[in-house]
């Protein structure tokens, strides 16, 4: 259990918040708002899974927000042209994978620092999108919203899809050789190379996977409303990185898992409704999120300091 101490402590924090809400604001537990909350967070969860992989491999990608926006708009435009969702979905995933492979090629191929590379692609993609679309909304045809299902049906589908992906990726990361290679590269790339794990290929692969998941998340996002906002992904990167880091994935690579990232995401997602129900003004949300991130890294820092005098 010591191995999962970090994840369990996030889980404990989450339970405390949930319990506190149960006592102080039982209104939080009405099924419909709760389902809506989960639905809103479903695309974020999908991106967070990919981001966790990237961070475990000791990289970072701050361009996911821009990728998300680009994929959302493109998927929206395709849907507006009458493409069925069954065709839009793979197209968006493919586009995301392509964008991810650009980052991957620059980072793994040329050995450039991922923070600057993805900063550059973030600006380029966002401004490119703005240039082409001029901030225009995309109106979606009927039958796209909630996959043409009822609202509740659509919401359950999205939540189910996100959770299914979480479970598949989480188990894959733990039980497939490929998943363990991500850890190996993140904890010691040189030792990985000596053990026959190719660090560059793994790095490239996690960026592509993150891109593909971002594309999928974009589709999961556009089906939630009748219109596609052009900047729906703004700020997503920070939200996702925060969730992953709070969930115990070490920014220095090699540590953490998707279950922790999931708990971290829920914890951060609960801040806003918790504030509302506790009658604290919602404007405090971001400040609380920042404080939680700092608390998480400080806890990590203190713990590693104590274990390595």
């Amino acid at each position, binding site marked *: 259990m010591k191995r999962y101490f970090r994840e369990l402590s996030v889980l404990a924090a989450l339970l405390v918040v949930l319990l506190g809400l149960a006592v102080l604001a039982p209104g939080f537990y009405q099924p419909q708002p709760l389902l809506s909350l989960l639905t809103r967070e479903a695309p974020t969860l999908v991106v967070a899974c990919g981001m966790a992989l990237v961070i475990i491999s000791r990289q970072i990608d701050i361009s996911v927000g821009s990728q998300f926006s680009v994929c959302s708009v493109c998927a929206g435009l395709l849907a507006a042209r009458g493409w069925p969702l069954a065709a839009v979905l793979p197209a968006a995933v493919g586009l995301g994978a392509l964008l991810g492979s650009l980052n991957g090629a620059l980072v793994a191929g040329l050995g450039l620092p991922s923070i600057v590379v993805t900063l550059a692609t973030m600006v380029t993609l966002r401004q490119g999108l703005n240039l082409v679309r001029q901030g225009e909304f995309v109106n979606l045809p009927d039958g796209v919203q909630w996959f043409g299902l009822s609202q509740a049906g659509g919401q359950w589908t999205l939540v189910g899809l996100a959770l299914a992906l979480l479970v598949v990726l989480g188990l894959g990361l*733990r*039980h*497939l050789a490929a998943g363990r290679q991500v850890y*190996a590269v*993140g*904890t010691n790339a040189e*030792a*990985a190379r000596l053990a026959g794990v190719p660090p560059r290929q793994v790095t490239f692969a996690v960026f592509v996977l993150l891109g593909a998941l971002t594309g999928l998340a974009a589709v999961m996002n556009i089906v939630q409303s009748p219109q596609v906002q052009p900047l729906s992904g703004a700020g997503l990167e920070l939200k996702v990185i925060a969730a992953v880091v709070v969930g115990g994935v070490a920014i220095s690579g*090699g540590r953490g898992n998707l279950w922790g990232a999931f708990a971290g995401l829920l914890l951060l997602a609960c801040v806003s409704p918790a504030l509302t129900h506790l009658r604290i003004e919602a404007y405090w949300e971001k400040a609380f999120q920042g404080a939680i991130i700092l608390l998480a890294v400080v806890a990590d820092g203190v713990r590693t300091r104590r274990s390595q*005098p």
Partner: protein
Amino acid sequence: MSASDAPTPAHGAPAPLLKLERITKSYGGVRALRGVDFELAAGEVHALLGENGAGKSTLIKVATGAHAPDSGRITLGGRTLPALTPVLAQELGIACIYQQPALFPDLSVAENLGLRLERGGRCRRIRWGERRELASRLLARVGAGIDPAAEVRELSMPEQQLVEIACAVGAGAQIVIMDEPTASLTRREQESLFAVVRDLQAHGVGIVYISHRLEEIFALADRVTVLRDGESVGTRPIREHGQTLSEADLIRLMVGREVARLYPPAESVPGEVVLALQDVGCRASGVRQVSLEVRAGEILGLAGLVGAGRTELARLLFGLTPADSGQIRLNGQAVTLRSPREAIARGIAYVPEDRRRHGVILELPIEQNLTLAVHRRLFPGGWLRDGAERSLAEGFIERLGIKCAGPSHPVGTLSGGNQQKVSLGRWLATQPKVLILDEPTQGVDVGAKSEIHRIIRQLAKEGLAVILISSDLPEVLGMSGRIGVMRGGTLVATLPGGTEAPVVMAAALGQGGGK
């Protein structure tokens, strides 16, 4: 299992597992190996002995394919290989256990073994149960009481070495190279390691065993090869015709007979005591109860093996790992040295061992490296003065004979010897009273070496108290007025200058040398 079960390594035995012939290797201008022959038979423990810089680690790197030799022949299992790569070496069954294991610190022991040993595609399912079982089996085989689920970062260094050995066993290595495996082991861990080695030996594995501890070599090895200055000075069976090789013979082989190489003669007469230590220790770095004195104009040599605590003592005096017991006096005054800054202010300078990481900053220009420790004095008010910096740099470049294209070139462009002179110059610029030199001539070519010796002499003549740490025994003997010998974190002997090399070596090895 005992050594007697093992097949006897007779000289007329079939083709040896590994044969290295006339291997040479140079780094830059430094010749690390000058035609070394080495042979390893199946089921043999072959000890490799030599001082630091004698060429042991280079020889290992050649044998594991990490570095290609300049010339010579490698024969592995009867096959002559044109080129050996790390991958090929692994496939051919060579495993090397380094002092600093290359493991995955964030992953469990079982996973570390699994990642190295399991083969198969990316989409293969990890069978954690089997992994753990394999790990337990291998760990049990090497006698390690390590939990396979433990993370490697929680393990001690010897435990990590045992994991490496388990890995070598699991990979079915035919040749296992152990680089000072017992340097950090406790007595009991050492015993169990010996059992592992004997067990491997009984299974026909050839073991190259590198150690400074003579008693281990006598307990474990079948043969011993001694390297000196990049040459093999002899291979001897430990037991022959019922007679055991004597320690004295071995020590004589190691240090050689021509100690009286050309060292500049001492010209200075020691003056007042500058630095005096009384029972100084530091728990964190393992230095205990060191008492010594250094006088102005004196060169005190510090001899000892790697890990004897010499660098740790230097770091203590320089305030990097401050002392937590005992008393330090400078010019008769009790002082505390809690940070490098404080040490520098008191007139202590330290030229560190790891030149490239600590001694200089490779990317910065020569002049900036030279002035890095004298900012306060050279730049009053905190503003740079190019003229002052340039003239100081040019002064040192001339005084120390630093060969460079100009003071504004990065230190990284210089040869090792000249980098070392820059590192030395930086500390001379602080106008120290005590100068600690840690392996000042390691990785330096012969010409620069004698220049550095001349400079050290000159400094002593000018009244500096010099502490010279060196694993090059002739250097310590040739340069020092007195010789302190360290072992296990403490000073075990202080010998007068002109002591015979075997006596110093015996003290360093703990063979009842003169107290």
